[in-house]
């Protein structure tokens, strides 16, 4: 039996057990989720490009007739035998607009539309969803009726009609129109969550603590809704961007502002496929694909963050 340091003896007073807090918190925080982070990086990059792009590339090149026509990207040759140059590394299209400039402006524009439409949709969703879930009765029935009906209306059709009636539509206005169809989904989601959280122990406890209805909704229930809200936001944004591209691809949407969808529209309209000008419709498509992948990654990451059971089984 070896002598062991007697100072090892702990105090006899029972101490509530504390896991090693520091180490656990820093590296095990659920936010260090690679899907979430890579998605955020992609979207973040595009936002940065939107904000700082003009510092690095001449934005005047986005105007019509600012560049030579129909040039391919660097290292490629077009049908006429012209080579791409570093002055227009991503090529140009048939009106003389530089593709790189178009991407630099168009990509953030798409995000903008998605963000505005989703924000508006979520805001409406929060208000209506809370009302439906909390107040119940006829308010709930009414809201459900409207939201379910809206969901069944073919949105693209209605948007086309509306846009046909309004000759000049700005980016923001289009986003507002898209929000008209983006709100039912968050409303239903939030209503469902509010209904279930309303009966939870902590809400009852808060009622007993004299909390007002306002505090119950925004102090107790809302914070627990944040993960759902975030996921819903991302989903709405993705859906709105897609709808916007759909509209623009048909020639509707803002006509003075360069957007990815409009670029694709112009490309198709000018028979870019037949002329083998793959960069004209290909680059916007690629950028859109990257945006959607980014949004998807964020969504998957948020899923894992919010639902511990989906995380890799460590802890």
């Amino acid at each position, binding site marked *: *039996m070896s002598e*062991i340091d*007697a100072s*090892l*003896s*702990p105090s*006899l007073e*029972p*101490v*509530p*057990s*504390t*896991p*090693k807090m520091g*180490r*656990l918190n820093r*590296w*095990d925080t659920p936010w260090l989720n690679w899907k979430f982070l890579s998605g955020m990086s992609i979207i973040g990059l595009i936002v940065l490009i939107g904000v700082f792009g003009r510092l690095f590339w001449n934005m005047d090149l986005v105007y019509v007739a600012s560049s030579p026509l129909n040039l391919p990207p660097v290292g490629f040759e077009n049908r006429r035998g012209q080579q791409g140059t570093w002055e227009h590394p991503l090529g140009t299209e048939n009106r003389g607009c530089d593709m790189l400039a178009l991407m630099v402006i168009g990509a953030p524009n798409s995000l903008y539309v998605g963000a505005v439409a989703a924000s508006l949709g979520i805001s409406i969703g929060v208000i209506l969803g809370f009302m439906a879930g909390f107040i119940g009765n006829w308010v709930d029935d009414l809201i459900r009726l409207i939201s379910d009906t809206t969901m069944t209306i073919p949105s693209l059709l209605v948007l086309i009609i509306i846009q046909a009636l309004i000759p000049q539509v700005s980016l923001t206005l289009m986003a507002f129109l898209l929000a008209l169809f983006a709100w039912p989904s968050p409303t239903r989601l939030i209503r469902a969550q509010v209904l279930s959280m309303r009966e939870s122990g902590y809400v009852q406890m808060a009622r007993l603590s004299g909390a007002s209805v306002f505090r119950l909704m925004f102090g107790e229930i809302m914070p627990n809704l944040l993960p759902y809200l975030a996921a819903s936001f991302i989903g709405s944004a993705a859906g709105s961007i897609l709808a916007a591209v759909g509209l623009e691809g048909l020639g509707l949407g803002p006509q003075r502002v360069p957007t990815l969808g409009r670029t694709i529209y112009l490309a198709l309209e000018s028979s870019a496929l037949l002329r083998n000008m793959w960069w004209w419709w290909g680059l916007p498509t690629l950028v859109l694909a990257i945006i959607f992948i980014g949004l998807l990654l964020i969504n998957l990451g948020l899923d894992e963050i919010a639902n511990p059971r989906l995380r890799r*089984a*460590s*802890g």
Partner: protein
Amino acid sequence: MLSDQNQKPIVLEVEGLRVYYETPAGDVLAVNGIDFQLYQGETLGLVGESGCGKSTAAMGVLQLVVPPGRIVSGQVLLDGQNLLDLSARELRKLRWAKLSLIPQGAMNSLNPTMKINRQIQDVIDAHLGATSKQEIRDRILELLQMVGLPERVYHMYPHQLSGGMKQRVCIAMAIALSPQVIIADESTSALDVVVQRVVAQTLLRVKEALGVSMIMIGHDMGLMAQMVDRIAVMYAGKIVEIAFVKEIFDHPAHPYSQLLIESVPSLKEHKPLKVTEGITHDPRHPPPGCIFQLRCPLVMDQCRQQEPVAQEVRPGQWVACHVYQSSEAGQ
């Protein structure tokens, strides 16, 4: 009584079983080296607080441990055969047929979309294969009768049954193939007092009728007194005492056993409340020496340095505690 027990064969033997759970901050030592034997025809109670590892031990015995848990070491001998050596296929054949489990919250794990007869049939089918429909039907009715359920339960869905009835269906499933050993994990926890009695008595009756050996896992010492022949007391992943049920209630040897028994409220006498704290050490880093040192009223220096070894202080009563070691070794 002891020699009687010793002459009975051992149906299940667990030696040095360790089951750990992986977490980012280190392994949780859920089951940290337990040994016990289950004799033919007896009921062994495994009792302890929540978090002591008793359910994990049951999972370990049945080889049902899933990541992040893993079996680190030990042997589980069923009729002499080490379960840890068997392949997954061989284990599947064993489960339900020789060794079955009534898991915790079993009544909630019944498939809500299947009628009762289908659920019991599933268990039988998987093992007996080619038996005639009539035979299976007869067998299921026989099982229902054995657990005291009326025949019409055969056609019912789980939601139509009360908690006690669902639990008895789970018992029926566990005995469907006449296993040798049944492990019942908290079989009566969520039930009302009278229903609890009915289910407990059903278990006992079934056990007598079939001659199975049973391990009953629970935290209610009162219930244990009614149901089991021997008790193993578990604390923080270790078995601190094993004894015949009468011995443990008359002379609980380990301080934790004493604590458990004292905290059982009785309807016969008005005892003052015995106040105590819960498990206080970090399950990832148990203190050196005796696992119970932080809560033990009799703790000595030796307890903080050296882990006590199980000793037989009375015939059939084994304790892991230095209080007995020192008196034995005369230190």
